[in-house]
Protein backbone atom coordinates (compact mmCIF):
# COMPACT_ATOMS: atom_id res chain seq x y z
CA UNK A 1 0.00 0.00 0.00
CA UNK A 2 2.74 2.41 1.02
CA UNK A 3 4.74 1.64 -2.12
CA UNK A 4 1.69 2.38 -4.33
CA UNK A 5 1.03 5.64 -2.47
CA UNK A 6 4.65 6.76 -2.69
CA UNK A 7 4.71 5.83 -6.39
CA UNK A 8 1.60 7.88 -7.12
CA UNK A 9 2.98 10.88 -5.20
CA UNK A 10 6.32 10.68 -7.04
CA UNK A 11 4.54 10.35 -10.38
CA UNK A 12 2.43 13.43 -9.60
CA UNK A 13 5.45 15.46 -8.61
CA UNK A 14 7.37 14.32 -11.71
CA UNK A 15 4.46 15.22 -14.02
CA UNK A 16 4.12 18.58 -12.30
CA UNK A 17 7.84 19.39 -12.60
CA UNK A 18 7.89 18.47 -16.30
CA UNK A 19 4.77 20.56 -16.99
CA UNK A 20 6.05 23.56 -15.07
CA UNK A 21 9.38 23.49 -16.90
CA UNK A 22 7.44 23.46 -20.19
CA UNK A 23 5.38 26.41 -18.90
CA UNK A 24 8.52 28.29 -17.87
CA UNK A 25 9.95 27.91 -21.36
CA UNK A 26 6.90 28.94 -23.39
CA UNK A 27 4.82 30.92 -20.87
CA UNK A 28 1.49 30.49 -22.67
CA UNK A 29 -1.53 30.64 -20.27
CA UNK A 30 -3.01 27.40 -21.68
CA UNK A 31 0.15 25.56 -20.57
CA UNK A 32 -0.49 26.44 -16.91
CA UNK A 33 0.95 23.48 -14.93
CA UNK A 34 -2.18 23.02 -12.77
CA UNK A 35 -4.11 22.39 -16.00
CA UNK A 36 -1.63 20.41 -18.07
CA UNK A 37 -0.51 18.23 -15.14
CA UNK A 38 -4.14 17.49 -14.20
CA UNK A 39 -4.91 16.73 -17.83
CA UNK A 40 -1.97 14.29 -17.97
CA UNK A 41 -3.16 12.57 -14.77
CA UNK A 42 -6.75 12.32 -16.07
CA UNK A 43 -5.54 10.85 -19.37
CA UNK A 44 -3.43 8.27 -17.49
CA UNK A 45 -6.37 7.32 -15.25
CA UNK A 46 -8.75 6.93 -18.19
CA UNK A 47 -6.28 5.13 -20.45
CA UNK A 48 -5.20 2.57 -17.88
CA UNK A 49 -8.73 2.39 -16.41
CA UNK A 50 -7.51 3.23 -12.92
CA UNK A 51 -10.40 4.16 -10.59
CA UNK A 52 -10.14 7.58 -8.94
CA UNK A 53 -10.29 5.94 -5.49
CA UNK A 54 -7.19 3.88 -6.28
CA UNK A 55 -5.35 6.98 -7.46
CA UNK A 56 -6.34 8.79 -4.26
CA UNK A 57 -4.42 6.22 -2.13
CA UNK A 58 -1.45 8.40 -3.07
CA UNK A 59 -3.36 11.52 -4.10
CA UNK A 60 -4.68 12.10 -0.60
CA UNK A 61 -1.13 12.70 0.64
CA UNK A 62 -0.77 15.63 -1.72
CA UNK A 63 -4.32 16.71 -0.85
CA UNK A 64 -3.29 16.90 2.82
CA UNK A 65 -0.86 19.69 1.92
CA UNK A 66 -3.78 21.92 0.84
CA UNK A 67 -4.34 22.76 4.53
CA UNK A 68 -0.82 24.13 5.21
CA UNK A 69 -0.84 25.70 1.73
CA UNK A 70 -3.91 27.77 2.69
CA UNK A 71 -2.29 28.60 6.07
CA UNK A 72 0.94 29.71 4.36
CA UNK A 73 -1.02 32.51 2.67
CA UNK A 74 -0.70 34.28 6.04
CA UNK A 75 2.90 35.06 5.02
CA UNK A 76 2.19 37.28 1.96
CA UNK A 77 -0.72 38.71 3.95
CA UNK A 78 1.62 39.71 6.77
CA UNK A 79 4.30 41.08 4.46
CA UNK A 80 1.71 43.31 2.78
CA UNK A 81 -0.11 44.29 5.97
CA UNK A 82 0.40 48.04 5.38
CA UNK A 83 -0.99 47.86 1.85
CA UNK A 84 -3.93 45.89 3.22
CA UNK A 85 -4.70 48.38 5.95
CA UNK A 86 -4.65 51.30 3.53
CA UNK A 87 -6.99 49.52 1.09
CA UNK A 88 -9.48 47.95 3.48
CA UNK A 89 -12.66 49.52 1.98
CA UNK A 90 -11.56 48.59 -1.55
CA UNK A 91 -10.83 45.00 -0.53
CA UNK A 92 -14.04 44.38 1.42
CA UNK A 93 -16.29 46.28 -1.01
CA UNK A 94 -14.86 44.75 -4.19
CA UNK A 95 -14.83 41.22 -2.84
CA UNK A 96 -18.35 41.23 -1.41
CA UNK A 97 -19.96 42.86 -4.49
CA UNK A 98 -18.03 40.50 -6.78
CA UNK A 99 -19.04 37.48 -4.74
CA UNK A 100 -22.75 38.43 -4.86
CA UNK A 101 -22.60 39.12 -8.61
CA UNK A 102 -20.91 35.74 -9.09
CA UNK A 103 -23.47 33.84 -7.03
CA UNK A 104 -26.55 35.49 -8.56
CA UNK A 105 -25.30 35.39 -12.16
CA UNK A 106 -24.39 31.71 -11.85
CA UNK A 107 -27.74 30.74 -10.37
CA UNK A 108 -29.82 32.89 -12.73
CA UNK A 109 -28.06 31.57 -15.85
CA UNK A 110 -28.41 27.96 -14.68
CA UNK A 111 -32.12 28.53 -13.96
CA UNK A 112 -32.62 30.30 -17.30
CA UNK A 113 -31.26 27.28 -19.13
CA UNK A 114 -33.51 24.97 -17.14
CA UNK A 115 -30.96 23.14 -14.98
CA UNK A 116 -32.32 21.30 -11.96
CA UNK A 117 -32.09 22.55 -8.38
CA UNK A 118 -29.19 20.16 -7.68
CA UNK A 119 -27.04 21.83 -10.36
CA UNK A 120 -28.13 25.35 -9.38
CA UNK A 121 -27.17 24.80 -5.74
CA UNK A 122 -23.90 23.13 -6.76
CA UNK A 123 -22.99 26.17 -8.89
CA UNK A 124 -23.67 28.74 -6.16
CA UNK A 125 -20.32 28.53 -4.27
CA UNK A 126 -18.16 28.12 -7.43
CA UNK A 127 -15.88 31.12 -6.79
CA UNK A 128 -14.98 29.92 -3.28
CA UNK A 129 -11.95 27.78 -2.47
CA UNK A 130 -12.70 24.03 -2.73
CA UNK A 131 -12.75 22.97 0.95
CA UNK A 132 -15.25 25.74 1.82
CA UNK A 133 -17.32 25.41 -1.36
CA UNK A 134 -17.88 21.71 -0.71
CA UNK A 135 -19.22 22.45 2.76
CA UNK A 136 -21.53 25.23 1.53
CA UNK A 137 -22.85 23.10 -1.33
CA UNK A 138 -23.66 20.07 0.80
CA UNK A 139 -25.30 22.27 3.47
CA UNK A 140 -27.57 23.76 0.78
CA UNK A 141 -28.46 20.40 -0.77
CA UNK A 142 -26.08 20.49 -3.72
CA UNK A 143 -23.69 17.74 -4.83
CA UNK A 144 -20.20 18.35 -3.43
CA UNK A 145 -18.28 16.41 -6.11
CA UNK A 146 -20.00 18.49 -8.82
CA UNK A 147 -19.18 21.64 -6.87
CA UNK A 148 -15.49 20.78 -6.73
CA UNK A 149 -15.43 20.46 -10.52
CA UNK A 150 -17.28 23.79 -10.90
CA UNK A 151 -14.80 25.42 -8.52
CA UNK A 152 -11.98 24.19 -10.74
CA UNK A 153 -13.63 25.60 -13.88
CA UNK A 154 -14.07 28.98 -12.15
CA UNK A 155 -10.43 28.76 -11.07
CA UNK A 156 -9.14 27.98 -14.55
CA UNK A 157 -11.25 30.78 -16.04
CA UNK A 158 -9.17 33.20 -13.98
CA UNK A 159 -5.86 31.37 -14.14
CA UNK A 160 -5.94 30.93 -17.93
CA UNK A 161 -8.29 33.70 -19.06
CA UNK A 162 -7.12 36.23 -16.47
CA UNK A 163 -4.54 38.07 -18.59
CA UNK A 164 -6.98 38.33 -21.54
CA UNK A 165 -9.85 39.50 -19.30
CA UNK A 166 -7.61 42.12 -17.69
CA UNK A 167 -6.62 43.48 -21.10
CA UNK A 168 -10.15 43.39 -22.55
CA UNK A 169 -11.76 45.18 -19.58
CA UNK A 170 -8.84 47.53 -18.94
CA UNK A 171 -8.00 46.29 -15.45
CA UNK A 172 -4.54 47.64 -14.74
CA UNK A 173 -4.12 48.40 -11.03
CA UNK A 174 -2.54 45.70 -8.88
CA UNK A 175 -5.44 46.16 -6.43
CA UNK A 176 -7.99 45.46 -9.16
CA UNK A 177 -6.05 42.53 -10.62
CA UNK A 178 -5.55 40.91 -7.20
CA UNK A 179 -9.12 41.38 -5.97
CA UNK A 180 -10.56 40.25 -9.32
CA UNK A 181 -8.47 37.06 -9.46
CA UNK A 182 -9.02 36.15 -5.81
CA UNK A 183 -12.77 36.81 -5.81
CA UNK A 184 -13.53 34.97 -9.06
CA UNK A 185 -10.90 32.24 -9.01
CA UNK A 186 -9.88 31.56 -5.38
CA UNK A 187 -6.52 29.78 -4.92
CA UNK A 188 -5.94 29.11 -8.64
CA UNK A 189 -6.42 32.82 -9.28
CA UNK A 190 -4.09 33.60 -6.39
CA UNK A 191 -1.45 31.31 -7.89
CA UNK A 192 -1.82 33.33 -11.11
CA UNK A 193 -1.59 36.59 -9.13
CA UNK A 194 1.92 35.49 -8.07
CA UNK A 195 2.99 36.45 -11.59
CA UNK A 196 1.72 40.00 -11.12
CA UNK A 197 3.82 40.65 -8.02
CA UNK A 198 3.52 40.58 -4.29
CA UNK A 199 0.85 43.27 -3.92
CA UNK A 200 -1.51 41.43 -6.26
CA UNK A 201 -0.90 38.13 -4.44
CA UNK A 202 -1.74 39.57 -1.06
CA UNK A 203 -4.82 41.32 -2.47
CA UNK A 204 -5.84 38.06 -4.10
CA UNK A 205 -5.30 35.94 -1.00
CA UNK A 206 -7.24 38.42 1.17
CA UNK A 207 -10.04 38.47 -1.40
CA UNK A 208 -10.07 34.66 -1.40
CA UNK A 209 -10.19 34.58 2.39
CA UNK A 210 -12.96 37.20 2.61
CA UNK A 211 -14.86 35.29 -0.10
CA UNK A 212 -14.66 32.07 1.94
CA UNK A 213 -15.83 33.73 5.16
CA UNK A 214 -18.56 35.92 3.64
CA UNK A 215 -19.59 33.21 1.15
CA UNK A 216 -20.29 30.65 3.82
CA UNK A 217 -22.45 33.22 5.65
CA UNK A 218 -24.42 34.64 2.68
CA UNK A 219 -24.68 31.44 0.60
CA UNK A 220 -27.80 30.16 2.40
CA UNK A 221 -29.48 33.60 2.10
CA UNK A 222 -28.77 33.85 -1.62
CA UNK A 223 -30.25 30.37 -2.16
CA UNK A 224 -33.26 31.27 -0.03
CA UNK A 225 -33.89 34.56 -1.90
CA UNK A 226 -33.71 32.80 -5.28
CA UNK A 227 -36.17 30.10 -4.36
CA UNK A 228 -38.64 32.37 -2.57
CA UNK A 229 -38.72 34.61 -5.65
CA UNK A 230 -39.19 31.73 -8.07
CA UNK A 231 -41.11 29.38 -5.81
Amino acid at each position, binding site marked *: MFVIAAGIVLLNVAIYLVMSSIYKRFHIPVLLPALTATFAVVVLLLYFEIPYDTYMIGGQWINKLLGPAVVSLAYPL*YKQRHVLRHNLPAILGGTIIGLLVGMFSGILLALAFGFSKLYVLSILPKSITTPVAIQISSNLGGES*SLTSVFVMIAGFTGAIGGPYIMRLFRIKSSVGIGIGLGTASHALGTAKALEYGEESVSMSSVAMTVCAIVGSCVGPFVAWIMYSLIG
Partner: protein
Amino acid sequence: MRILRIIAQVLFLYLFSLLGEYLQQLLHLPIPGSIVGLLLLFVLLLCKIVPVKWIEDGSTAVLAYLPLFFIPATAGIVNHMDIFSGRGLLLIGILIVSSVLTMVVAAHFSHWLALLSKKSKREKGNES
Protein backbone atom coordinates in the same frame (compact mmCIF):
# COMPACT_ATOMS: atom_id res chain seq x y z
CA MET B 1 20.31 22.60 6.34
CA ARG B 2 17.90 24.79 4.40
CA ILE B 3 15.82 21.77 3.38
CA LEU B 4 15.48 20.69 7.02
CA ARG B 5 14.36 24.17 7.97
CA ILE B 6 11.73 24.13 5.19
CA ILE B 7 10.40 20.73 6.34
CA ALA B 8 10.22 21.88 9.97
CA GLN B 9 8.41 25.07 8.94
CA VAL B 10 5.91 23.22 6.72
CA LEU B 11 5.14 20.93 9.69
CA PHE B 12 4.62 24.07 11.78
CA LEU B 13 2.16 25.38 9.15
CA TYR B 14 0.45 21.97 9.14
CA LEU B 15 0.05 22.28 12.91
CA PHE B 16 -1.88 25.52 12.35
CA SER B 17 -4.24 23.90 9.87
CA LEU B 18 -4.88 21.08 12.39
CA LEU B 19 -5.43 23.63 15.15
CA GLY B 20 -7.80 25.51 12.84
CA GLU B 21 -9.77 22.34 12.15
CA TYR B 22 -9.97 21.63 15.87
CA LEU B 23 -11.23 25.14 16.65
CA GLN B 24 -13.72 24.98 13.78
CA GLN B 25 -15.27 21.79 15.15
CA LEU B 26 -15.14 22.98 18.74
CA LEU B 27 -16.85 26.32 18.00
CA HIS B 28 -19.08 25.04 15.12
CA LEU B 29 -17.73 27.74 12.79
CA PRO B 30 -19.14 27.87 9.24
CA ILE B 31 -15.66 28.60 7.80
CA PRO B 32 -13.20 25.74 7.17
CA GLY B 33 -10.32 24.85 9.45
CA SER B 34 -7.51 25.90 7.10
CA ILE B 35 -8.92 29.44 6.94
CA VAL B 36 -9.22 29.53 10.75
CA GLY B 37 -5.55 28.47 10.85
CA LEU B 38 -4.59 31.20 8.36
CA LEU B 39 -6.36 33.90 10.41
CA LEU B 40 -4.82 32.58 13.63
CA LEU B 41 -1.28 32.60 12.21
CA PHE B 42 -1.83 36.07 10.72
CA VAL B 43 -2.93 37.48 14.10
CA LEU B 44 0.03 35.82 15.87
CA LEU B 45 2.39 37.33 13.29
CA LEU B 46 0.84 40.78 13.77
CA CYS B 47 1.18 40.50 17.57
CA LYS B 48 4.83 39.39 17.10
CA ILE B 49 4.09 36.20 19.07
CA VAL B 50 5.26 34.12 16.10
CA PRO B 51 8.36 35.64 14.46
CA VAL B 52 8.25 35.79 10.64
CA LYS B 53 11.53 33.82 10.56
CA TRP B 54 9.67 30.73 11.80
CA ILE B 55 7.49 30.47 8.67
CA GLU B 56 9.33 32.46 5.99
CA ASP B 57 11.17 29.64 4.17
CA GLY B 58 8.39 27.08 4.61
CA SER B 59 5.69 29.44 3.27
CA THR B 60 7.80 30.51 0.31
CA ALA B 61 8.46 26.86 -0.60
CA VAL B 62 4.80 25.83 -0.27
CA LEU B 63 3.57 28.83 -2.28
CA ALA B 64 6.11 28.16 -5.04
CA TYR B 65 4.55 24.71 -5.59
CA LEU B 66 0.93 25.75 -4.93
CA PRO B 67 -0.56 24.39 -8.19
CA LEU B 68 0.82 20.90 -7.44
CA PHE B 69 -1.50 20.56 -4.45
CA PHE B 70 -4.65 20.98 -6.59
CA ILE B 71 -3.92 18.12 -8.98
CA PRO B 72 -5.54 15.25 -6.99
CA ALA B 73 -8.72 17.24 -6.22
CA THR B 74 -9.04 18.44 -9.82
CA ALA B 75 -8.44 14.94 -11.18
CA GLY B 76 -11.75 14.04 -9.47
CA ILE B 77 -13.27 15.24 -12.73
CA VAL B 78 -12.80 11.68 -14.08
CA ASN B 79 -15.97 10.81 -12.14
CA HIS B 80 -17.93 13.55 -13.95
CA MET B 81 -16.84 13.21 -17.54
CA ASP B 82 -20.48 13.65 -18.73
CA ILE B 83 -20.03 17.37 -18.06
CA PHE B 84 -17.90 17.51 -21.21
CA SER B 85 -20.71 16.36 -23.47
CA GLY B 86 -24.21 17.46 -24.48
CA ARG B 87 -26.00 19.88 -22.13
CA GLY B 88 -23.08 19.68 -19.71
CA LEU B 89 -21.09 21.93 -22.02
CA LEU B 90 -23.70 24.65 -21.47
CA LEU B 91 -22.88 24.48 -17.77
CA ILE B 92 -19.21 25.16 -18.52
CA GLY B 93 -20.23 28.22 -20.57
CA ILE B 94 -22.38 29.48 -17.69
CA LEU B 95 -19.50 29.03 -15.23
CA ILE B 96 -17.08 30.92 -17.47
CA VAL B 97 -19.48 33.82 -18.14
CA SER B 98 -20.34 34.14 -14.45
CA SER B 99 -16.67 33.96 -13.41
CA VAL B 100 -15.64 36.64 -15.91
CA LEU B 101 -18.48 38.85 -14.62
CA THR B 102 -17.33 38.26 -11.03
CA MET B 103 -13.76 39.17 -11.88
CA VAL B 104 -14.59 42.33 -13.81
CA VAL B 105 -17.08 43.65 -11.23
CA ALA B 106 -14.79 42.88 -8.27
CA ALA B 107 -11.75 44.40 -10.01
CA HIS B 108 -13.42 47.62 -11.18
CA PHE B 109 -15.42 48.17 -8.00
CA SER B 110 -12.37 47.71 -5.76
CA HIS B 111 -10.27 49.96 -7.99
CA TRP B 112 -12.99 52.63 -7.84
CA LEU B 113 -13.24 52.35 -4.03
CA ALA B 114 -9.44 52.62 -3.75
CA LEU B 115 -9.48 55.86 -5.78
CA LEU B 116 -12.40 57.17 -3.71
CA SER B 117 -10.70 56.57 -0.36
CA LYS B 118 -7.46 58.06 -1.65
CA LYS B 119 -9.35 61.19 -2.72
CA SER B 120 -11.18 61.55 0.61
CA LYS B 121 -7.90 61.12 2.50
CA ARG B 122 -6.34 63.89 0.43
CA GLU B 123 -9.31 66.20 1.08
CA LYS B 124 -9.10 65.52 4.79
CA GLY B 125 -5.40 66.33 4.58
CA ASN B 126 -6.16 69.70 2.94
CA GLU B 127 -8.74 70.70 5.55
CA SER B 128 -6.44 70.22 8.52
